[in-house]
């Protein structure tokens, strides 16, 4: 029983990690119309930047994370201008390949700067609490809480603010959006900035419970695609449900069935869901 509770806690923490990582991706999907394959690499970069500001620049933890967020936000704008704006009318496959290019570049860059080795980032928030006999570290609790809070804020922001609608509009008809006075370039830039900042925050929070390495983003990236698809592309509530349910499924499967089952769980669920509802749990299709 305590095992179950322990794993539930771990599942939630993992869910928090997945959600945080997924947010940025969902947002960018809104404007890009396609998953950004460089997402994992950006997440990785975010972690390294946080590490740099924390360890080398000696900033306080929270400040370091924010600094990293700022840098990535800027990078987001640069990417939008240099890569995605020129491609705005190109088919989605082109976006994909472009993001692969960006991914290659970022990974190689980080490797040149910080080397190929693993790095360990110590978080100031140490210690753990025991919940119903389960041991949960504060870092993980912070992750869960932040994930939920950020997601709710963002959902609210997108529903309420004109910016949220603008993103939707651009994705559905760029010319139409321009004609009603939305500035597609501006909106995409802002969106990229925001979502990459979020990616950095996610990385900054998660990095302490794992190691930094140039490859750290790869594995996560793919899980995250599965999540936003499961939730329905561009749907934040979807991302939350997707993130937590997949994480818990993964942990439970690997606990009570086998590690392989754990690894496969996420993809099995995904396939099952799409087989039944080809547009994800929260997704909708356009009518003719």
């Amino acid at each position, binding site marked *: 029983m305590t095992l179950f509770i322990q794993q539930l806690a771990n599942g939630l923490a993992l869910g928090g990690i997945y959600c945080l990582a997924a947010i940025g991706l969902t947002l960018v999907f809104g404007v890009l119309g396609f998953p950004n394959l460089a997402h994992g690499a950006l997440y990785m970069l975010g972690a390294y930047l946080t590490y740099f500001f924390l360890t080398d620049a000696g900033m306080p933890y929270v400040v370091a994370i924010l600094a990293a967020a700022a840098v990535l936000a800027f990078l987001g704008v640069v990417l939008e201008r240099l890569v995605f704006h020129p491609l705005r009318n190109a088919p*989605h496959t082109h976006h*994909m390949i472009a993001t692969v290019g960006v991914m290659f570049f970022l990974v*190689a860059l980080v490797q040149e700067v910080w080397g190929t080795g693993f790095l360990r980032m110590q978080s100031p928030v140490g210690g753990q609490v025991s919940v119903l006999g389960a041991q949960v570290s504060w870092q993980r609790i912070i992750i869960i809480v932040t994930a939920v809070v950020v997601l709710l804020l963002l959902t609210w922001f997108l529903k309420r603010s004109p910016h949220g609608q603008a993103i939707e509009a651009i994705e559905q*008809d*760029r010319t139409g959006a321009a004609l009603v006075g939305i500035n597609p370039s501006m909106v995409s830039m802002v969106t990229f900035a925001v979502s990459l900042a979020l990616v950095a925050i996610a990385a900054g929070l998660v990095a302490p419970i794992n190691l930094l390495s140039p490859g750290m983003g790869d594995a996560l990236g793919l899980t995250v695609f599965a999540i936003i698809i499961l939730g329905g592309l561009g749907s934040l509530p979807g991302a939350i449900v997707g993130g937590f349910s997949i994480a818990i499924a993964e942990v439970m499967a690997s606990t009570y069935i086998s590690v392989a089952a754990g690894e496969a769980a996420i993809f099995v669920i*995904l396939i099952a869901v799409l087989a039944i509802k*080809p547009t994800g749990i929260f997704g909708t*299709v356009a009518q003719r």
Partner: protein
Amino acid sequence: MIDRLNPRLLGVALVAIALLLAPVVFSEQQYLLRVVTTAAIYAIAAYGLNIILGLTGQLSLAHGAFFGVGAYTVGLLTTDRDWPFWSAFLVAILATTVLGYVSGLIALRTQGAYFAIFTMALGFLIFIVIVRWESLTHAHSGVSGVKFPENIGPIDFTEPATMYYFVLIFLAAAAYTTHALLHSNAGRSLVAIRTSEDLAKSIGVNVAVSKQLAFTASATIAGLAGGLFASLNGFIGPDSAGIDRTFEMLLFLLIGGLGTVMGPLLGSLLVAFLFEMLQDLETYRFIVLGPIIVLLVIFAPRGMIGYLNDLVPARFKRRATTMPGEPATEPATVPAGSTTKDEVH
């Protein structure tokens, strides 16, 4: 009826001759022949991807996995089961065909990005099976000692050049098939689906079935290529079924030119040599490669072929018209009239 001076044909002829002479040219640099042979195998796989993505407009990310299934079928059958290559090769092709067909049944219910990610998940499942089902696949240990094709009379396949020509035959077949498809009803139905499923239906195309066939065919070709790959390398590890394979092939295809006849071929060769050349830059190479990819996508969006086509004098375009140089437009089906190519500043 074919204009002798048509630069397209000229180009094709040149490429063909170059490929035929490769072993002679590289007789001193055997490893380069290996590079070309490997590239050729990837090109074959890329032709498979070209059918489902280039013609039908569905982005399948399971392609690398199908490639891996082909490779492992040949690998395991020729080693653990000690089958001769030929029968193993045949089984590999059949296996991927069946696998492609079955997974197509579910995958094709989804559309656009959903299809892409669905197939990605599928690819991962296959990969996980390979990595985890140790008793069958030897997991990370991989399969070594994969057989060369057995000699046919005097033809000795352990000879690199022979192996190369063997691969080349399939490559030529793949290219020709693509050409024939593009100029056939089947091809037109697929291209029709790519541009507008509704319109395709309205002219009597059975969208569901056509997609299913295209997807199956693409899987088959991937499997075939995988089988060749296993035999050429002698050793295969799980990496031969990874998502990276898919991305590589996608890269070849896009750089070569989606939905074109020569695109997959040129793309694969070009990128393969790019990779080799950049090897000297060691880890810096990805710092160079990344931007190159981005630039190519931005400035040659229709790939090398598309780019070359623009250089072809107008008077030849007439025959060319049946060859859509244009890449697939948005996979997601948006109600008619709501897509636009207008400049928006």
